[in-house]
């Protein structure tokens, strides 16, 4: 028996106290992560007029209030529209760039990739203020197209990253085969590469939709009366009244997010997109 086998055998059968402590610790961290997220659910059904815990009674009135307030519905519509259009545009731009970065070798490729990822760490508050300064003489403030550009910038790195990850797994031989059989570069991309990239594109689309739908800091500089996204409208509401209406909206959003997570997990495996 080799030494490493002996080692792993001595560890394997019984969970050591260290391993049990680690599992307990991980459970505590998961509890910490889940706590502020799931605590909004019971409060959504509270009959109290404030966000007090525990709720003193049960009622649906905050859901009724949510539906009756036109501004939330309108804002949700704009957010959804913005998220969908920004995602489609970012996916196109991101997948094209991914093909360029993976299938072609050229000097400065790694640097270019880093540059393409900068929106991930560039301070959102600076980008938002900068876009506002740039847009105001162009008349793009409080304008859908201005918002779209901003949302494309922040969602693009996610689309690029997931596209890159799947493209690395697509067998180059398949593209070569299409090419040798007489398909030109565009037809090869359209009929071979693109269909094979589908899992990555799906994952990218999910992330992009969520990032855009939740975007707050940049949007706050560019939106305004008549053009409000849901996070902004929710924030505005909490400025004036901290009642469970906001918990009701949060609960609806949580349900939608959970469904999205389950779908993407079933379709492509969320874990794969990160490792």
């Amino acid at each position, binding site marked *: 028996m080799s030494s490493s086998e002996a080692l792993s055998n001595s560890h394997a059968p019984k969970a050591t106290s*260290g391993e049990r402590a680690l599992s307990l610790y991980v459970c505590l*961290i998961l509890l910490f992560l889940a706590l*502020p997220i799931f*605590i909004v659910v019971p409060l959504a059904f509270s009959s109290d007029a404030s966000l*007090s815990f525990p709720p003193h009674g049960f009622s649906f009135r905050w859901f009724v209030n949510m539906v009756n307030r036109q501004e939330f519905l309108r804002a949700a519509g704009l957010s959804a529209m913005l998220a969908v259009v920004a995602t489609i545009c970012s996916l196109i731009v991101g997948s094209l760039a991914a093909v360029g970065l993976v299938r072609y070798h050229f000097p400065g490729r790694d640097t270019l990739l880093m540059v393409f990822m900068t929106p991930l760490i560039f301070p959102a508050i600076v980008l938002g203020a900068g876009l506002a300064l740039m847009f105001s003489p162009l008349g793009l403030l409080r304008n859908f197209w201005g918002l779209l550009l901003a949302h494309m910038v922040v969602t693009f790195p996610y689309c690029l990253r997931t596209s890159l990850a799947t493209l690395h797994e697509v067998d180059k031989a398949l593209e070569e085969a299409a090419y040798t059989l007489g398909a030109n570069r565009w037809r090869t991309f359209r009929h071979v590469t693109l269909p094979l990239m589908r899992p990555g594109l799906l994952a990218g689309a999910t992330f992009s939709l969520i990032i855009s739908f939740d975007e707050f800091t940049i949007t706050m500089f560019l939106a305004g009366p008549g053009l409000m996204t849901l*996070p902004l409208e929710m924030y505005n509401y909490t400025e004036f009244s901290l009642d469970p209406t906001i*918990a009701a909206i949060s609960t609806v959003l949580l349900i939608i997010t959970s469904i999205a997570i389950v779908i993407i997990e079933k379709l492509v495996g969320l874990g794969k997109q990160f490792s």
Partner: protein
Amino acid sequence: MSTPAGAPTRALDGLPPRRIDYGRLFSLLMLLAPAALLLAVGLLWPFLTMLRMSFLDRYPDPSALTLEYYTLVLGDPYFLRIIGRTFSLALVVTVITAVLAYPVAWFLARSRSRYKHLVFLAVISPLMVSIIVRSIGWTIVLGNEGLINALLHGLGLIDGPLQLMQSFWSVVLGMVHILIPFMVLSIASVLGKIDPSYAEAAYVMGANPVRTFLKVTLPLSVQGIASGSVIVFCLTIGAYVTPVMLGRGKVLVMAMGIFEQMVVTVDWPTGAAVAMVLTMGTMLVLIAYGLFLRRYSRR
């Protein structure tokens, strides 16, 4: 078939062509141009607009370039306090996040648990929950009528509510909650690549588990901690929503200062100068990280 069999293979393999293949170059440019254009218009242009604004003597109708607003910002105790608070917040959040995240990353990289996949999902799922929802959640936990105060009151430990919101530490808590997944992912990806036989070797040679961890595994995983720290630090110094919603006006950070100057008092050059100080902070961290990586890979 008109295309010779060798040419496309070389084109796709990315082998250096014997002469410049203009068709290939053209398609490469076409592939990268939309992304380059997007970042030029949507990131570089606003950044340069901001940079220029920070040097203008007044706006509108600028007549000269000046450093006046930088000296104003860096000489004003009000702004200095905000800058100091922002960077100490980022530092504290980075350290706490790294310490809390490391064991979770270790679990994800090493454990043979059946629930590993589920744990992974549970760690990254909060990334998909709106930051507004999470701030509301913390309000419910920490508020005067919130969970913790209700618990303490129920146990008879306090009479009146404890003021848990509106403090530096409530903002730290909110930021740590948001950023833990990023740190776990960074560290786990590096830990996963370390060959366990290094640690086993140290163990066989007689090092106890603590020594093995400190002398072998930890140094090998420093790169993951470093890249995670860069992300966490950069995202914290630019954060707006959490300090506003958990600090409730009591914890002023640079992002709020920028918003005040740009939108409330409409003093654009001052706001731009604060924004540039923030951006320089981000850049310094990135440069330090780059230097660290170079030194580290040389060893």
